């Protein structure tokens, strides 16, 4: 299946894109993240949470949406 991955904040500086479509055959969010970490080794160093269906999910949740958001915490003010 194809999954749209959206990146926010400083993550876009690691991936050089705000959004991309990736092909994915696994089941869990963690598996998808592992594939993204292979593609962007520096992503692993960053803190972020994952949301699907407009809700934060733990990494060990099943992927149930065709779109996920990688959201880091922002600190600026």
């Amino acid at each position, binding site marked *: 299946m194809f999954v749209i991955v959206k990146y926010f*904040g*400083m993550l876009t500086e690691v991936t050089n894109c705000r959004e991309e479509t990736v092909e994915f055959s696994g089941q869990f969010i963690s598996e998808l993240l592992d594939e993204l970490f292979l593609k962007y080794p520096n992503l692993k160093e960053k*803190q972020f949470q994952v949301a699907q269906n407009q*809700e934060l999910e733990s990494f060990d949740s099943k992927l149930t949406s065709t779109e996920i958001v990688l959201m*880091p915490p*922002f*600190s600026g*003010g």
Partner: protein
Amino acid sequence: MDRYNRHIILSEIGQIGQDKISAARVLVVGAGGLGCPVLQYLTAAGIGTIGIIDYDTVELSNLQRQVLFGTSSLGQNKAKSAKQKLQDLNGSINIIAYPKKLTFKNAIDLFRKFDIIVDGTDNFETRYLINDACLITEKPLVFGAIYKFQGQVSVFNFKNGPSYKCAFPNKPNDDDIPNCSEVGVLGVLPGIIGTMQANEVLKIILGIGEVLSGTILCYDALTNQTITIKVKKSNKEIKNVLLHSKDFNKREMNDVCKVEDFEASIKEFLNEENVQFIDVREVYEQPKIEGIPITNIPLSSFLENLDLICIDKKKAVFCQTGIRCKMAVFLLNKHHITNCYSINEGASEINSYINKPQKSKINE
């Protein structure tokens, strides 16, 4: 009252609502990019008591987005300067300026004096402190944070809702500090996000509409896209904070701030001979320091370049705002390199000291 007429004629607010606003006590932590619009609108709305806590002083580069300040405010404490401006906007409310740092020691007592806490700070250390203190004192937290062109708004600890730690349980590493003053920010963005925070404050006070409790709203100024993300409450995270509430005021600011003993002003070093000046900013950052020899060791590749450090000299370490250099000094100490000082002044201020006539350096 004429002043609040446009509120009062709204059926959702009325005189009763305006009286609630007048009775409310709101603490704004940080009078920077976010704090300025929050303070401006809350003052105009007639919040009865507004507290402003900020230890920082107004710098020229703040004026691009921190709209309460003007050229005449340069060098002044932000809390005091903001109070002065706001008191002119609305003299009938009580504004209290706290020109100091929010710490584990003072947070609990301070928060107890207010009904709602607004987070307009610029670092994770203080954000996590605020979250925990809000949990302990049972105050709703109106959260706002920005990065370059994007912002996050939410309300935490509201009516049993989730806390900031439920969304982001782990405080990011402090060598990863993405600070506006260092990475840049679109000036209007904190205006938008701060105004949204002020809106949440008013909804909480008035009990109208839907409060962003348990939902993080993310706004992108470049695409005008807004997404909302729901946060699940984590009883584990909340319990963990409350469990340690007794020791809260004994907690120390983390490593970055533990180097306080080694903080110094650039003035102490400019006339000394055996000093190595170390710039830990990234190579592209401006302004460059002119007039004294500088060793450039960007923080991003700091540990790989420890061989550039002159062990036998005093080390005066500086950056853009005085935050990253603390991290650098911490790292140096950790590698048993001593005689290191983090310089309080940022690069542009350092330049202005270097270019002052010699006489004033001696006198200061």
